[in-house]
């Protein structure tokens, strides 16, 4: 399993301003099992890149291929299957169902395409310190707690690639490390790739490649 990124550039970017980018206008490939760290200052298109890779935006030039299939040609059903089984994401803006409980938010994803034989929700919630929040509405949780909910949600499905867009912005050091450890553990059990995009280098993230946006 590979993702090929061929000369992609957001349509709203000036090509001249991306001369030093190791991602924009470059030909890259991400292989399953190889962790990628993308360091991107604010405004460099980090979130846009993650959205392009996940397929929820198409306002770019170039192509992104999953194996040999250009994801721009995926229809809604194909995207659904792809997102159930091959790619997972932690959005920067989290995108939780705020009116529903934490457990409902997790189950709505877990039931779609469960990876674990038995539900790991309680165990993961305990590891990240939010086990007491499971029956509470998401809207009553702090932003940091919501980030941990979003992280657990992303780990409940099978995936070849896990996209992370500033997943620790509201976590303290201890919780960051716990969250990272959990994600690496789950990723390794799937022999998957983590693509972590953040403002700065995350020292406790073991990556095979670092790219500057």
């Amino acid at each position, binding site marked *: 399993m590979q993702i090929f990124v061929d000369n992609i550039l957001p349509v709203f970017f000036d090509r001249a301003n991306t001369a030093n980018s190791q991602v924009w206008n470059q030909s890259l490939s991400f292989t399953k099992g190889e962790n990628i760290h993308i360091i991107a200052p604010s405004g460099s298109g980090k979130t846009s890149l993650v959205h392009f890779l996940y397929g929820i935006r198409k306002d770019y030039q170039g192509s992104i291929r999953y194996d040999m299939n250009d994801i721009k040609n995926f229809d809604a059903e194909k995207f659904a299957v792809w997102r159930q089984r091959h790619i997972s994401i932690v959005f920067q803006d989290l*995108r939780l169902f705020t009116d529903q409980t934490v457990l409902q938010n997790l189950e709505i994803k877990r039931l*779609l395409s469960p990876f674990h034989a038995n539900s790991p929700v309680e165990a993961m919630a305990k590891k990240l310190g939010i086990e007491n929040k499971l029956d509470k509405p998401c809207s009553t949780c702090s932003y940091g707690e919501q980030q941990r909910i979003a992280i657990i949600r992303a780990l409940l499905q099978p995936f070849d690639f896990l996209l992370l867009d500033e997943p620790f912005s509201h976590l303290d050091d201890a919780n960051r490390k716990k969250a990272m450890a959990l994600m690496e553990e789950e990723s390794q059990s799937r022999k998957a790739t983590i693509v972590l995009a953040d403002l700065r280098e995350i020292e406790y993230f073991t990556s095979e490649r670092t790219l500057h946006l």
Partner: protein
Amino acid sequence: MPSYQHIEPFLSVKQPGLARWLSYIGLGLGVLLLLSSIQLFINIQLLLKDKASTTNGADFISVTKTITNANMGKDNSFSDADLANIKAQPFITDAAPLISNQFRVKASAGSIIPFSTDLFLESLDDKFLDTLPPSFSWSEGEPEVPIVFSSDFMEMYNVFAPSQDLPQLSDKTMSSVGIILECYSPAGIQNYRARIVALSDRINSVLVPASFMYYANKNFGGVTNVNASRIYIKTTDANNPQLLRFLSEKEYRVNKDRTKFGRVKQLLQAVVSGLAGFGVLVILLAMLLFSFYLQLMIAKSQHNLRLMLTLGYSPGWLSKTVAKKWVPVYTTIITIALVLTALLQWGFQHQVMYERDELSPLIHWMVLLTALVLLMLSILTNYRLVKKLLSRLG
């Protein structure tokens, strides 16, 4: 795999309010109206089917020239030219003359039925007869003449027979009654045995084979070329306006029973069709209400639905799952309407029509089929609407 109950908390689904109950009732009434109209239409066809005058979609009507003060006493028979002109009309499939006897005929039934009367005889092309037994034929020299007798005449006889101390006749016994036909001519009286071989519901006459009529008119009446006073025409629609206009222009009379009968049937069918059309309109309005509700629900839930699609939910699965929620609603409403239609039909056949054989107490298969088609259409329309609305979110 999740089910509807898992995603229901994420959708803005309110409990049925007044508006929704009204749309349920509207749909039920519309379906009931449509199904009972179809059943009623079929009932009309069965009850008002005039087997005799209509065969294979054709109407048979007898035509005579209108007798007025001006033409009274003159020859009002149809000439060959008249007959040819009638046959040439595009709305007339065929026409044949009724040839009547040109000599005096007297009929009696011997000692069994002491009955004697002067009689008229007619003959008509075989293909216009509604009943044609193999015995209805005659060749010169045969002493017995078969008769096809009008069932209306037989009924009239059986009505007045008891008052005349005459025996009533059943369909089976009438053929065993020996009749003597006395044919009068200048040369004398020639007697023939005769027997009623069939009853006709279509032709109000006493019919003998055309070969006998030709022979008898020639030998007893001294005429071979006889113009008919009555013509039978075959048409696809006795109420065709063009036909009626032609007959009026030519001052031809028809047996109004047939046309009036047809008009009554047409009127009833028109009324029932109108009811059915109204039923369809009510159904469409109810479905429109349902679709408004669906659109509202999806609009209110669009944030959550969009997020579900983003997280990997299949639009096809979401469409089917949301649409499936309505299947029990449609099934219940249409089933109730079907059961009510069945009860109405049973009541109609039992209580109103006194269990007439032409009608079944059960609903016709077409009504059942219509209900099934309606159900399929409702489910399909619902699914397609949900799919369309969801695809706009994606």
